[in-house]
């Protein structure tokens, strides 16, 4: 267990491991994404109230779910970096932020597009979209803080503290926004009861959620590889890699 932990701290080992994981995970991810999307868009019945526009759910919900989970992945990496001072945890944390921001962005844009046929407007201050927007700000805050520090090691520590503060705050933010929305909005716009989703719609949704988790993992590993090389550019193993002219 302990030796495995130490291995994770070793850049060349992590670089090679991520390479061999990506070799099979990346194709599987792409296949799952395509299969889930085709299934959801073409092979499911329409929602009886919203018609076909609900098909956006197959990207909106997985993106939102994984974007939120990504923040916690980032915070866990941050905690590891603060407690055990593991440099590779810094790298993982740094890699999470842009991916999370991109996923939040997907959730926001698709939510907005979904809103147009459903509510007749591009933007509604609905609880879920508002929470997503705040999550987007949180991600961008981490990126901005990282870029503001010149010493990248300290930048990672500062971001770790910030993301840990965020993990405590996110449940509070989500709950308070939920509560705020239920107070201010009439119940007439309420939709997707959530509890009574038909299995024929549920399975492709579950597939897409799994596929988005895999997508997050792939993007995380790819980002980490690029970051590892840059950080280790003066070491012998990176030089050998570059001289060999290949990246695996």
């Amino acid at each position: 267990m302990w030796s495995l932990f130490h291995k994770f701290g070793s850049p060349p080992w992590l670089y090679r491991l991520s390479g061999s994981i990506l070799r099979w995970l990346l194709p599987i991810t792409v296949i799952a994404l395509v299969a889930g999307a085709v299934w959801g868009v073409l092979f499911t019945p329409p929602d009886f109230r919203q018609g076909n526009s609900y098909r956006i759910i197959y990207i909106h919900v997985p993106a939102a779910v994984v974007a939120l989970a990504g923040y916690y992945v980032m915070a866990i990496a941050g905690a590891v970096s603060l407690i055990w001072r593991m440099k590779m945890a810094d790298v993982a944390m740094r890699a999470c932020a842009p991916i999370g921001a991109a996923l939040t962005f997907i959730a926001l844009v698709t939510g907005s597009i979904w809103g147009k046929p459903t509510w007749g407007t591009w933007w509604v201050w609905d609880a879920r979209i508002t929470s997503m927007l705040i999550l987007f700000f949180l991600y961008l805050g981490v990126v901005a803080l990282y870029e503001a520090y010149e010493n990248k090691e300290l930048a990672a520590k500062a971001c770790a503290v910030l993301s840990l503060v965020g993990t405590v705050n996110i449940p509070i933010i989500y709950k308070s926004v939920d509560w705020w929305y239920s107070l201010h909005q009439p119940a007439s716009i309420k939709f997707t009861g959530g509890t009574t989703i038909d299995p024929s719609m549920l399975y492709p949704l579950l597939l897409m959620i799994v596929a988005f988790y895999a997508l997050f993992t792939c993007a995380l590993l790819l980002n980490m590889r690029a970051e590892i090389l840059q950080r280790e550019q003066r070491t012998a193993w990176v030089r050998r890699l570059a001289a060999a002219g290949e990246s695996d």
Partner: protein
Amino acid sequence: MRVAGSAAFCARLLRRQLVLGLRRPVEIGNPLLFFAMVIALFPLGLGPAPDTLAAFAPGILWIVALLSNLLTSEGVFRSDFEDGSLEQLLLAPQPLYLSVLAYVLAQWLLTGFLLGLLSPLFALMLGLETGAIPALASSLLLGTAVLSLVGGIGAALTVGLRRGGMLISLLILPFYMPVLIFGSGAVQAALAGAPAGPYLALLGAMLCLAVALAPFAIAAGLRISVDA
């Protein structure tokens, strides 16, 4: 040699911060002046109709309080960072948790506390019903304390950076949102004739959580900033 007790040390730090603040009375007045000026912008922007202003008053008062707190939070550690006092504080044997709490308490006493006390005045300017004023003042007193603690985290993380001013708002504003929701909610409840107690209780719960956890984050942020 007897190491000075933590409580005495903190009391000393609190007194030092208050003395430093009181010797520059203008700087205490600045956030209040800012508050008054921004309040004056709303009638100019929204029109002077008393009904409109009164309807928006809870939100306006809370948002402006939040902004003025944000502006003062930025400088909590700045001068001590620049003149090296912060280094000495980090090296002192007393727990940093209590020391940063003293910093934040001093900052709150000089800004949020005064703002809470003076808020009835501004509420009258916006035509808020007098019945809602106790809820406003008490929600501001509780809420600004949370804001000061959370703002302290942002200040600690950005104090070593040259362009900290804008950055701290980006980092901290999302964390301010729950406080804004429940703070203005308390005033709106009071306006609607409902009890404001539950909202104040929630703000109180947030304050407890912030007092328990924020000083750790502030301390960690200061150690990182001083390291740079």
